[in-house]
């Protein structure tokens, strides 16, 4: 009987970490395509209507959400890379600046999702706060080191933006939880 139980559990993609059970979710194809596109649309449309909206990084939040929920490093980095490249295309800058930053964040968030339970609101707040800063550091490094832009780094601005995005992430992730499908 114990032998039979072990066989059943290893046949589904459930990972045990610190004796806790962490579930892996998947999403339907329309949700996988449409949610990032809607986030990109909001990102370019709303700052003209509501200037304060430019502080938010909706595509980044979407990348973190999908990466943490899927808990697959490859899916996370690919999602981050594609969303980042599309954001580069819309921003009008060199293709790859957001792409590299979001690839790193997608990989990192999914790696963290494998090891920790990041389903509760406090954990989501902290994860978003952390990965926003990581995203900005990678982006600024690429912009300065590779492209040669002279961007001004301001800790005050970056931390303020990180907190704003982390606060937005909590209700947004709760909304996106409705699209989750158990594997």
């Amino acid at each position, binding site marked *: 009987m114990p032998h039979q139980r072990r066989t059943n559990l290893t046949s589904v993609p459930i990972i045990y970490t610190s004796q806790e059970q962490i579930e892996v979710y998947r999403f339907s194809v329309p949700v996988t395509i449409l949610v990032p596109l809607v986030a990109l649309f909001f990102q370019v449309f709303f700052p*003209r209507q509501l200037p304060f909206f*430019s502080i938010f990084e909706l595509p980044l939040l979407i990348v973190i959400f999908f990466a943490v929920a899927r808990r697959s490093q490859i899916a996370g980095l690919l999602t981050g890379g594609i969303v980042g490249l599309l954001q580069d295309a*819309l921003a*009008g*800058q060199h293709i790859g600046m957001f792409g590299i930053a979001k690839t790193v964040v997608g*990989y990192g968030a999914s790696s963290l999702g494998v090891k920790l339970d990041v389903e509760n609101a406090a954990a989501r707040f902290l994860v978003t706060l952390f990965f926003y800063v990581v995203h900005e550091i990678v982006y600024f490094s690429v912009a300065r080191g590779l492209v040669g832009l002279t961007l001004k780094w301001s800790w005050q601005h970056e931390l303020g933006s990180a907190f704003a995005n982390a606060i937005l992430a909590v209700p947004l992730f709760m909304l996106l939880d409705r699209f989750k499908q158990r594997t």
Partner: protein
Amino acid sequence: MENLLSRYRNVSILVAVLFAQVLGLAVQVRRSTENESSRLIRVWAVGAVSPLEKVIIWVKGGTSGVWHNYVYLRGVRQENRELRDQIERLRLEQVRMREDAEQARRLQALLGFKEQFISRTVAAQVIGSSGSDQVRSFYIDRGTDDGIKGDMPVITADGIVGKVLRVFGGTSQILLVNDQSSGAGVILEKSRLQGVLRGTADGGVILDKVMSDEQVQPGERVLTSGGDRIFPKGLNVGTVTDVAKGKDSFLKVRVKLAVNLSKLEEVLVITQQEERVPEVTETQPARAADILAQRLPSVPDKPVVDPKTQAAAADVAAKPNASPAVQPAPRKAPDQTPAATAPAEGAQRKPVSSPGTNPSIVPAVAPPPTQKPDTAKPDQAPEAPADAAPAEDKPH
């Protein structure tokens, strides 16, 4: 080796994806022009987003138009009265300005100066932004189908906005003047110092390449110089707010833009400019010395009035349509001469479309009319065309 790759499969894929992007980035930085692959992804991304933006802007404009034009009309009568009064005041001012402009054109024609005229503009609505704090650009609802091309200047009634960065079928991306990669040739109105207007990291603009031994006063107006071959000469840019010593023996001059770039809804794209010698309608040519003398403060105010001229002026005064309140044009110092009257006037024309309606192609913004008012014909007073006092002001 195979075992190692399978063990570190995820990290290997991460490194490969990052390497591919870094390589692509390096290729783009190396090439000055955009290659086809990067252009394709932009076309797809913009093509996916811009139709939805246009629809939302159209619905929003329609709703706002119905509300403001048919429902919310409070204070419209009062505003109408005030605007009528303002039109009357501006008409009088226009007569005086026309005199000055005419005089400047005569002088430029004599000296063989060529002016840049804005001959065609396209009005466009702002539909979206870059979505990033680091890239200051926005999208408009006009593209190659409307005759838009790269590097065309974009302005509003208040001043310059930026230039066309990329053009798609029905959409264009505009690079704002406060972006860090942007630059425009400008000139200070009074001191006539030239410099380069550049965007800063915090979204402001500075005037670069002004030597530290020059005198720049806060509050001085900044105009386009025409040296960048993008913006026509004489367009309003903004005012100097702060002057400080910078690096490399240059001043750091901060400029406040005349246009509020965060609240733009409609803009004008200058699609055609032409350079020509201004037209002069004078039948009798005036001597350059006479025209220059009017600008010099040392010359006495009133020249000796010829009896014939006085008689002609009296005839003019007898005309019923003569403007009763025309004042003589004030004498100006040479350095107060406008750099280019026609482009500035052209730029200050608002788009013909009202908010909420679909903007259309604006016909040529023609230079000011060359016909002079009846009260000061140059052939009647060739010695002092601009200062020829109207007959109403003279004792009969």
